[in-house]
């Protein structure tokens, strides 16, 4: 058994077997959820990501910042300049100092970063029972399982199984490491009303916001994959040529 295991490791070549991403954490199996961006050729479902932004704006943004994103980035989701300007102008951002040396509030512009709900981490903790609502800008890259994990987490709230004692103010979640999460169940049926008629089920909202957060974390994904396909095709042809040259050069000495 031991020898077989050793042999298997050697075959796998260590690389696949030992990716540290897989190494950390008592693994709670995260179910695979089908997303539009899965696989090698997947792309972002723009409508889903737009609805996801709506979920973020109306639900998540009450506690969670996304300080790495700007309103102008929303154009990549298919929103028009006018729509982006309208979204940005809904928030008040602090600017200044002006010529009198005073800070002042003004409506947001597309070039502004997403406004954070709290001025600093201490304020965020104070308002949330000591727990810090993490920034969601790159959350899909910062968790094992990525968007699958986010979907599982958002749909994973349940009553604690018998025998499990919950800490004060904690909520049971099937997929959160340790199963006790400070964040209350954020999504309830019909909490968000989608303009395109998509039913506001928890699953729909979770899928849409997971898509939005995946896009926020990897806005370059589509460009990256498209370029990758071209480069792999190019390199395959070049490799064939290089091999032919090598064969020709070596033909007289073998």
């Amino acid at each position, binding site marked *: 058994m031991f020898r077989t295991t050793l042999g298997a490791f050697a075959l796998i070549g260590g690389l696949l077997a030992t990716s540290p991403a897989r190494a950390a954490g008592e693994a709670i199996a995260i179910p695979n959820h089908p997303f539009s961006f899965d696989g090698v050729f997947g792309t972002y479902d723009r409508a889903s990501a737009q609805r996801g932004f709506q979920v973020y704006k109306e639900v998540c943004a009450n506690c969670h910042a996304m300080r*790495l994103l700007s309103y102008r980035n929303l154009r990549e989701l298919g929103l028009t300049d006018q729509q982006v300007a309208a979204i940005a102008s809904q928030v008040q951002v602090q600017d200044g100092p002006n010529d009198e040396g005073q800070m002042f509030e003004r409506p947001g512009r597309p070039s502004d970063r997403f406004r954070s709900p709290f001025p600093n981490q201490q304020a965020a903790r104070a308002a949330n029972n000591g727990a810090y609502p993490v920034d969601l800008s790159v959350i899909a890259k910062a968790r094992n399982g990525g968007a699958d994990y986010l979907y599982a987490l958002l749909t994973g709230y349940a009553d604690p199984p018998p025998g499990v004692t919950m800490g004060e103010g904690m909520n049971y979640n099937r997929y959160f490491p340790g199963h006790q999460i400070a964040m209350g169940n954020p999504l309830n049926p019909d909490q968000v009303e989608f303009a395109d008629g998509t039913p506001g089920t928890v699953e729909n909202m979770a899928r849409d916001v997971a898509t939005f957060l995946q896009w926020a974390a990897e806005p370059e994904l589509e460009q990256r994959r498209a370029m990758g396909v071209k480069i792999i095709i190019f390199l395959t042809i070049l490799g064939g040529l290089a091999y032919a040259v090598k064969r020709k050069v070596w033909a007289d000495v073998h």
Partner: protein
Amino acid sequence: MAIGLHDSDFKNPVIRWVDQRMPIFTMMQKEYGTFPTPRNFNYFWNFGALAMVNLMIMIATGIFLAMHYTPHTSYAFDSVERIMRDVNFGWLIRYVHMNGASMFFIVVFIHIWRGMYYGSYKAPRELLWMLGVVIFLLMMATAFMGYVLPWGQMSFWGATVITNLFSAFPFVGDWIVTLLWGGFSVDNPTLNRFFSLHYLLPFVIVGVVFLHVVALHITGSNNPLGVEPKGPQDTLPFHPYYTAKDSFGLVIYFIVFAGFVFFAPNFLGHPDNYIPADPLVTPAHIVPEWYFLPFYAILRAVPDKLGGVLLMFGSILVLFVLPWLDGSPVRSMRFRPVARIAFLLWTVCFFVLMYCGGMPAEEPYVTVSRIATAYYFGYFLVILPLLARLEKPLPLPESIARAVLGGGGPMPAGAAAKPMDKA
């Protein structure tokens, strides 16, 4: 040769003019054109050239990253994400650099493995080998400091764990740690000096690589048979034979590289490094980058801190004396039936250690790490010295040409020492 102008063979008047005054064209012609190279290389001999290309890719992408990166604890994480989002093709440059580090270690691990399997470290190539170990150590230091720069959770805690190792040394330990940190904890001065050194060390590597190549071109390359070339029938000019072969290997390497960069750029990374560094929150499991895992496993296999640190450094330093531990005159493992099995088992142990290093420090991984660590050192310190006396090697081929061409006589005229077309 008269004092004054070099006697150049080049016909092109411009090249000739330069070459007479500074014979770099003659040198290149000698070292990379007609350079006699054993005719029997397999594809393992591509990896030196691949490592050279990889080093250049790392330096090129690194210079562009440094133009946009801010080495400050408050801005480092955000500046990296700004590169990913707002810098034109910044995501490409960063992912190439990030995965380039992993590719570099893949390539260099194979390069070192090839040297060990075919006995390339043996006389007269001991110094060549030792310079290679120096490059490997410099690479590890560079990679470690580079991983700290994005200032994510694994950056910070990896830096904390690894720098703390030096405190195990008696008397000077704490002093070394303070010097590394630039203070009394991993903080902004640490990040600043790591950035500075991360920019400096690659150029030191370039210098040692140059010496590595110089030493190589004195002794000439080893080969899969481990038998020295005895004459022109055993060698081929480097160009076009090995330039062609290396070119093909290079494209294959680029395909693997592109696979990571474009389709799985974060596969070899750790998700925690996309969480900004927080000195108040310790990650559940602090793991180094995959290429450090075998050495990390050796560190953790020893219950004593100083012992673990010494063994971890020892696992690399032992390579310096490998040429003298292995006294067998036969280079290639092809002709060493027992040593071959012992070495392949050592290779398995390396991967086992890599696996255990990524696992939490608990059973059964600790015991497995200890067994693998014992074999790792046992191979160098016991098995190789013993086998040098006890093992009966298989008969060596008379010459490379005879082995490769299958009992044939000397090479067909013209093929072996085909002169290269002059520029």
